[in-house]
């Protein structure tokens, strides 16, 4: 229970950082998605049911503070979590490059999903948004990928300190 509450508080902290501190960066496109990285880490830290519920809450919080009126992230974040859970056993995830790729791919896939949902569910589809995949989503996912190894390292340190777990590799944690 303590682990869940602590993770929820960390999630809220990341949301606040994302809505305040990250916006003071001069270039908007280099803003990594901290909550996505955290959701991916949840896949290594929690079993599917608790983790899925937390990912759902993270998505709900994202939707709450965004101009997204329908709530796409409430749907996409649990999907990202379950996909990460599914793939974590099938891929080697130690080291910078693999963690970078893991987050980069998930960032891109989630962006594509959001774009498809926007086009499908919006009463008046908002024009051709697909060029944004290259001009916007690609750089953002790249920087999310770059920030991932560093944040994973912090999460590992934090969870080993908070829950008195030995500092194993990321996959040995589950």
């Amino acid at each position: 229970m303590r682990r869940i509450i602590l993770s929820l508080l960390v999630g809220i902290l990341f949301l606040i950082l994302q809505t305040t501190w990250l916006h003071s960066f001069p270039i908007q496109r280099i803003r990594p998605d901290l909550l996505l990285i955290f959701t991916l880490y949840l896949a290594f830290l929690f079993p599917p049911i608790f983790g899925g519920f937390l990912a759902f809450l993270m998505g709900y919080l994202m939707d709450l503070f965004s101009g997204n009126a329908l709530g796409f992230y409430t749907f996409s974040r649990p999907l990202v979590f379950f996909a990460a859970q599914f793939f974590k056993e099938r891929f080697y995830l130690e080291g910078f490059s693999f963690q970078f790729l893991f987050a980069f791919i998930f960032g891109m896939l989630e962006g594509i999903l959001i774009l498809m949902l926007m086009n499908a569910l919006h009463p008046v589809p908002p024009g051709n948004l697909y060029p944004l995949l290259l001009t916007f989503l690609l750089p953002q996912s790249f920087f999310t990928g770059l920030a991932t190894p560093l944040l994973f390292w912090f999460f590992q340190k934090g969870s080993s300190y908070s829950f008195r777990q030995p500092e194993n590799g990321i996959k040995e944690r589950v």
Partner: protein
Amino acid sequence: MRIRGFFLFRRYTLLIFIILLLLFALVLMSLRAKQRKGVEFFDALLMEICSPFQKASTLVIKTVQGTFQQYVFLVNLEKENRMLKQKIAELQEENHRMKEMKLANDRLRQLLQFREKNSPSMIGAEVIGQDPSSWFKSVTIDKGERDGVKKGMAVISPAGVIGQILKTAPHYATVLLITDYNSAIDSLVERTRAKAIVEGKGENRCQLKYLLRAEEVAVGDIVVTSGLDGNFPKGLMVGEIKKVDKKGHGVFQYAELVPSVDMTQLEEVFVIMGPLPPPPLQEEKGKKGKKTKK
């Protein structure tokens, strides 16, 4: 049979959970689309919990930024100059603070004049947070239902239109910026009185939709609100046209505009509270008269 059913349930618990969770997310989407009260209450509750932290974080960031700007160049000073530098720093800080106060004073005076000139039923609010996602454009303000803020109310600044209230909590609200893809405002080209809808296009840009090809618009033309949507008063500046394209076929032409307000630098805004006077029809009639004369 019952035991077998139980084992089957246990075997597929995870799958059932995943399907239920995703279904629940879809149901929430549907409830949000229908604007049901239950979801709104839960949204407001969570917003009330998170927004004070957001407000505190914004305050800390502003303070740290101010301090950083003030002191970052003074770190590597030699010892013999420390006293002198400290004095300079103190004076600089004082100067900086006074400059900030002057800027705030100017800004607030401008806001006050604007408020007095336009509508007495406006409320000032501070921006405490931005949109966490990159796809959508919104800000969180520190005024909510308890201050009389309601969904759909117009949000403006002395420089022009900012957006509309999208979600409300007792003490906080989310504003959908005009640059968001979901935003649409009824507007007019000031010079030619051509009607169009201003839609968001993401990064500090908007586009004019349903602008008739026959209408003459040029780069540099100012776009103002028409007042017909019932949310915004007539004549508020929306932005300036930066690109006009008549190349394609069809009834409409394409125009792109840059909002008059820099949405990345928002600090204080106004929410229009009171009912708006019905938009005058004189100009519309005048325009129709002109057209018939032609």
